């Protein structure tokens, strides 16, 4: 079974800067793996048996090579860095197109696992779009994934509760945050990973023309961005217990109704 895990590196601090074209400043901020994507990788590593392979793929700046190698140390078999200045500023459609192209290039996968949403862009569209681009179904908001005789069993969290689904491969599943805890890299794993190479795919390798990817290939454009940083509100301080609780109850009624 060939499993592909798509991951995204997001700025790790609360403070985020925006550049001239309102693109999130990624190079200045320190990066961490998106929380839901870590759950997706752990799910893949848990499902993996001896003859299966887990390929982890991310689209982003060249400096992600080291963090990607670290994922090899955690148990991934191949690490793919899809990186090219032409990809910068891509919206979800352009991103999904590029990732789908990379997935096809790497050979057909039985299962694609992603995080359901990234904590920076928070659109949650990429998994479904990649599935559509590859012509396979997508099951979002999954809590757990199991494999039984070639079919994938997914427990999916909906507003009304949890639904257990079975679906044949190939299929794309997006995981909720905190459903799986990503295992730590081991000393042995890190030693093995040192010799492994992170494979680079750029627009040329994928046969993508600069017009069809990145900012130029995007179908939506951010035209303004304003920031709301933690401002001082200096609200009143109530020291009388009853008065305080009554005021709190009033605010609660107003919000909960």
């Amino acid at each position: 079974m060939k499993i592909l895990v798509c991951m995204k590196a997001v700025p790790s601090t609360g403070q985020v800067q925006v550049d001239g074209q309102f693109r999130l400043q990624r190079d200045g901020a320190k990066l961490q793996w998106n929380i839901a994507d870590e759950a997706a990788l752990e799910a893949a590593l848990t499902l993996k048996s001896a003859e299966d392979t887990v390929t982890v793929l991310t689209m982003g700046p060249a400096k992600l090579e080291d963090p990607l190698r670290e994922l090899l140390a955690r148990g991934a078999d191949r690490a793919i860095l899809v990186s090219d200045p032409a990809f910068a500023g891509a919206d979800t459609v352009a991103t999904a197109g590029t990732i789908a192209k990379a997935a096809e290039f790497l050979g057909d996968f039985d299962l694609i696992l992603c995080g359901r949403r990234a904590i920076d862009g928070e659109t949650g569209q990429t998994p479904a779009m990649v599935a559509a681009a590859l012509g396979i179904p997508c099951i979002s908001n999954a809590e757990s994934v199991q494999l039984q005789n070639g079919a994938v069993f997914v427990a999916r969290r909906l507003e009304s509760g949890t639904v257990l689904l079975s679906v044949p491969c190939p299929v794309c599943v997006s995981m909720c945050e905190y459903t799986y805890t990503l295992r730590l890299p081991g000393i042995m794993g890190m030693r093995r990973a040192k010799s492994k190479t992170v494979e680079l795919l750029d627009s040329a390798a994928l046969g993508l023309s600069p017009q069809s990817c990145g900012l130029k290939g995007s179908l939506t454009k951010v035209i303004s961005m304003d920031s709301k940083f933690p401002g001082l509100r200096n609200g009143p301080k109530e020291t009388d217990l009853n008065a305080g609780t009554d005021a709190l109850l009033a605010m609660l009624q107003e919000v909960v109704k």
Partner: protein
Amino acid sequence: MISQNALRHAEKCRFCFMCRHLCPIQLQTGKEVNTPRAKGLLLSMVNKGAAEFDKDMAQTMYECLICDACVNDCATGYQPPLYIREARTEAVVNDLAPQAVMQLIENVDATGNIYGVQKPSFAQEGSDVLVYIGEVAACKVPQMAEGLLKVLAKAGVSAKVLDNEPASGVMLADLMGYVDEVAQQAKACAAAINATGIKTVVVLDSYDAEIMKQRYAQWGAEINAEIITATAYVAKLIEDGKLAAKAACGTLGACHDDDRLARTFYEFAPIRAIAKAAGYQLTEMFNKERLAKSCGSAVALAYMPNIVTKVAAGRWDDLARTEATAMLTASPEAYLCLSQATPEGKQVVDLYSALAE
């Protein structure tokens, strides 16, 4: 090299000198590299290609007790142990760690504990609580383990102790950082504890309590029982009248708050209640509670005995400026380190044995 998040902390510490006065090793060696700032600066230099992560730099990253004095002081929440532990992982992966450290790791591989011996067993049956002894008490300070078990028996508590008690992973975490091998030890330990079905785990060594309470859940090694430090549990027994206070023994003592009680659990009252119940008259050292100066850790003592002995001597100096003649402790790690440098006319007291007599 180290993770982006750890690098962020290192780059905040590299030009900040605010916690330099607290590092117990720097107070003894006077070396500039024995400060959180210097370690942050060095790792930032490596990241910028201006310095090489070599054997000497690995040695520097091990000259730290991870006592959290710097973490506790930082007003904006930065944590040197974050990048120091990750640098140790880097050292072990690239075979740059000091020989003494590699020897301890081999001991753990062979026997599960850093001392490379068959861990003495204090196995006994019981149902009220499960007592987790830990390798330091079992291998190096057995009288403290016996003392605690006697105290619990005196209080009518039916205490179980696991036979070949698995390691908690805290030693390995200090030697090689939070890596999968540590998480595997944690899972094995949690499984053994959960298998007993007992809902309260009394942990003798506060270092073991810290990793069980704060890290196990993140690694999927939940312990479905309440983890409580031995000091808090015994103090509760005294408070509930299950343990009679002993007559005054006429010695003036001062309590040493060990690193984890001082700066992880912020637990100060229990050890003093136990000391009073053991008959000691109490005075206080100036550096106490959250500002208590570390006297060393068992794993650091194992790989750099000369530095830790000096650090223990530094803690005895604090006692020397009081009238007390006895340093009172309830931590096997502190007891072991302090007894490396006990001055003339002073004694280090294991409170459980004192209470049990």
